[in-house]
């Protein structure tokens, strides 16, 4: 079984994020990293390989040149090879365009199982996995907390809004995993050294035969009209409990008609 893991290079959560003049997230001004939520996807793939269920792990990312750092980090954790889709025309691509690009790349990678994170920590849309699966006509199971593969099918345990479910899908399939699926490992020194020799292939839009008018800000199906900081919350009152905090808090709630 061959696995492809979709990973994203995102700004550090602690960085101060801002929008660039073109109303896209300013990715140049901040430190980036492999999305913490995608580390769980990498971890699940490596565990499947360690258990003998997977024979090859490929990582796939679409992102700026620096996104190769995310691929290197994943390769240092484990796995075999990586593909980086990078093209100047991709700047400003929306979810629909990203899904088209990733699906085109995945057609060439030919994996039996595609593993994604539950959401990117920047866009936080949680739509890419399903959009990619729809394009590839694959079953998708999102938000797996436990993931098993046996006899050509995928079994997932997950929490939905109102239940805990066990869901089965035939392979090939796509799954996204949550941060409850199992702590991601740190790359070992040996792993970091080994990662340097693992192949990273670069694909352009031309390689994927994707017309440039379907991607970038110009090809996006959505457009951002305005961005603005949220109105600052009015400075609140902070009191120190001197035995009267409960009464004062109750007064506050009553004054705001919250009791």
């Amino acid at each position, binding site marked *: 079984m061959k696995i492809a893991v979709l990973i994203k290079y995102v700004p550090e959560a602690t960085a101060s994020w801002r929008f660039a003049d073109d109303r896209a997230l300013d990715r140049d001004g901040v430190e980036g990293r492999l999305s913490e939520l995608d580390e769980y996807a990498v971890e699940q793939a490596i565990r499947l390989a360690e258990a003998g269920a997977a024979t090859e792990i490929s990582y796939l990312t679409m992102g700026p040149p620096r996104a190769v750092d995310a691929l290197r980090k994943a390769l240092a954790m484990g796995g075999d090879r990586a593909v980086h889709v990078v093209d100047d025309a991709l700047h400003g691509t929306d979810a629909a365009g990203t*899904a088209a690009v990733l699906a085109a790349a995945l057609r060439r990678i030919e994996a039996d199982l595609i593993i994604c994170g539950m959401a990117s920590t920047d866009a936080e849309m*949680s739509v890419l996995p*399903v959009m990619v699966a729809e394009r590839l006509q694959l079953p998708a199971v999102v938000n797996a907390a436990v993931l098993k593969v046996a006899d050509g099918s995928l079994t997932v345990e997950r929490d939905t809004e109102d239940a805990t479910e066990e869901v089965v899908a035939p392979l090939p399939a796509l799954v996204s995993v949550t*941060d409850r699926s199992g702590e991601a490992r740190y790359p070992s020194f040996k792993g970091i050294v080994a990662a340097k020799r693992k192949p990273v292939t670069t694909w352009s839009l031309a390689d994927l035969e994707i017309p440039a008018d379907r991607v970038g800000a110009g090809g996006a199906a959505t457009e951002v009209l305005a961005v603005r*900081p949220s109105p600052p919350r009015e400075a609140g009152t*902070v009191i120190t409990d001197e035995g009267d905090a409960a*009464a004062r808090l109750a007064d506050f709630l009553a004054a705001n008609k919250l009791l």
Partner: protein
Amino acid sequence: MSTVLVLVHHDDGVIRKSSLELLTLARRLGDPAAVVHGDAGDALAEALGRHGVTTVYAIAPPDPESYRPAVEALALAQLAARTAPVAVLITSGPSGTEVAARLAVRLDGGIITDAVQVRAEAGGPVATQSVFAGAWLVEGRVRRGTPVITVRPNAVTPEPAAEPVTPQVERVELAEPVPAAVPRVVARRAKAATGRPELTEATVVVAGGRGVGSAEGFALIERLADELGAAVGASRAATDLTWCPHELQIGQTGKTVAPQLYLAGGISGAIQHRAGMQGSRTIVAINKDPKAPIFQIADFGVVGDVHTVLPALIDEIAKRRG
């Protein structure tokens, strides 16, 4: 007026609050048409009519039952092709997002997720999103294909239409079979009923974090919640420590809530937690560390120990309510 397709969920004919919110928004964009799974009984149709629904599309469930998000996406795609709606509105959350994502690909259009506001404009509906842990607001619109928009629960106050209407009910058979390779739910354990309001829909949420110290400490959070008729929430630290079930987690990898009142006890206010509660109208925090980041966004903060402040508050509220 043009149609707005709204995916409506209901429990035995009682429309979910989040669906009523979608209908409230839909009326600002056009003529709401409700898409429901299974038969729409008279009571449901009448309730939908009170919320301005002119047409109810009742999706005939395929036999044998199939994967629900796949069925809903197929039905919505089919209805969108027929009615050319100005927008399709779906509630945010794992299953709604899954339906919306499949639908957007099928319609080859754009998708906007987790909107906190949607308004009509000449060039099509404009949606507002709250991003980067609530620090920024982004206004955007779909400019290709049918706009598919998911809306965060509690973003608007649900209101009935000024004039009730009597909707037409139409049964919709899927024109296309659900693909054979869809997931199959082989076991399902419904969450234990707590008698408390649903977390994402609640008007008041009381949430506990690592600072409550233990499962017994977390019980104080539950007692206060019950005193206020509130839903119970938690930080990831509290759910990871198994002081409460995982489904109560609020934040980036948990639920997003926007109640009238959010009361946090023993929660530091990490960015990932704030991402799920920053949209709350009023935020109250109790934390013994005056430097805890939660105080930066709190309307009312108490520097104090939850083990003394919470019991006193429960008594105080009980006393005032007499």
